[in-house]
């Protein structure tokens, strides 16, 4: 079991850039517009517009291109698989045939279209997490979902839980590591045998881990109550979110861009 030294949680790259400085709510909504926009285009002009827009966002955000491309890593198999099945199984005018294998003109177009769409979607969503810290995202989500409070949606509680969880993931990773080492020192064999045997070896790690979680939860709940935590009503923030005119401009621009990309797509040139 490889352990997680120097592991960084999430993908956030802290850089001083105009994109990083934007309000998280603005970034979440703008990303949503972009994802819908990318999903709706299917001709070269639409994809070209989105590629240009994406390149502009990346350069404004001052994120190294290598890191942006690495957001595709978890899905590259999916991208390759999707493109390949389209390449070989789309009916149409053949441009290449060799025995059973037949590649059609339409197949090539579909393969490129689907591959490009998938990569753009994943990279646009990746830009959100590259430029916005998880805590900011949690705050942004809380604010965006707070109108639903009147229907009983626990926006504040969810955001509070996300913030607490984010704080405790590294702590719990350390605890797991510590307990695993302690059990290995006592002769536990965590890396041998099939899944069932490993699971059984893992029980002496899991039980103390859960006991620790319950105790910590108890301590933290007591500490919060001692500081008079009473839920979302009337709570103030250390770093309140501030919506600036620049955020409004960016949001309107991305919405208009998405509409324009969808409207212009296929207007002048179609495949």
């Amino acid at each position, binding site marked *: 079991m490889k352990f997680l030294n120097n592991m960084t949680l999430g993908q956030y790259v802290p850089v001083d850039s105009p994109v990083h400085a934007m309000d998280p709510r603005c970034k979440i909504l703008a990303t949503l517009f972009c994802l*819908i926009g990318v999903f709706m285009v299917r001709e070269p002009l639409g994809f070209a517009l989105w590629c240009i827009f994406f390149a502009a966002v990346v350069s404004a955000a001052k994120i190294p291109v290598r890191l942006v491309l690495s*957001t595709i890593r978890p899905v590259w198999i999916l991208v390759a698989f999707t493109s390949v099945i389209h390449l070989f199984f789309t009916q149409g005018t053949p441009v290449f045939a060799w025995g059973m294998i037949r590649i059609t003109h339409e197949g090539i177009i579909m393969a490129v279209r689907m591959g490009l769409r998938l990569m753009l979607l994943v990279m646009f969503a990746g830009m959100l997490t590259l430029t916005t810290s998880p805590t900011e995202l949690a705050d942004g989500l809380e604010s965006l979902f707070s109108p639903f409070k009147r229907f009983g949606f*626990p926006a504040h509680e969810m955001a509070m839980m996300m913030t607490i*969880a984010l704080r405790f*993931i590294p702590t719990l990773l350390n605890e797991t590591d510590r307990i695993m080492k302690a059990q290995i020192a006592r002769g536990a064999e965590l890396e041998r045998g099939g899944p069932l045997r490993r699971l059984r070896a*893992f029980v002496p790690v*899991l039980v103390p881990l859960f006991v620790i*979680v319950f105790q*910590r939860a108890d301590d933290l709940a007591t500490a919060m109550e001692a500081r008079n935590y009473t839920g979302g009503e009337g709570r103030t923030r250390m770093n309140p979110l501030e919506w600036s005119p620049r955020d409004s401009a960016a949001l309107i621009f991305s919405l208009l861009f998405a509409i324009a990309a969808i409207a212009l797509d296929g207007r002048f040139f179609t495949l």
Partner: protein
Amino acid sequence: MENRKVRILVEGALAAALALALSYLRLWRMPQGGSITLENVPLFLFTLRWGLKAGLGAGSVAGLLQLILGGYVVHPAQALLDYPMAFAALSLAAVCRRPLWAGLLIGASARFACHVLSGVVFFAAYAPEGTNVWAYSAIYNGSFMLPSLVLSIIAIYIIWPRLEKVG
């Protein structure tokens, strides 16, 4: 906010955090590349302790965190189904506590159903027309999701009696 509510909120947050922490720990690497983790175990335990509604909350939080910390989005419905809904589905384990295995099976099946549905949505949008999307999705997800869920159920079975003593 009374004591119990804060307690549930904090414990749910920690259960979600532990689910995330355990998701980075590979118990077993499958031959075809997927991996088995114990990420479901804390969420199952939490929902068994505090019930369906609390479990839904903790599950959605765990899903959202996984999405933020390294998930991917290829389709709007896939983002919802693969992350918040899949984890929240585990909390259906609370609808049937006796026998314990029945509830756990319901929770695990619900999560599996979310992933299969998300796969169907994905393949419907990206695979050529005429592909049998249900079969593709069930095979693709079943290959790595099912062993993980089965092992989680076994883990709960071993751990639950021991934790009841601790409280």
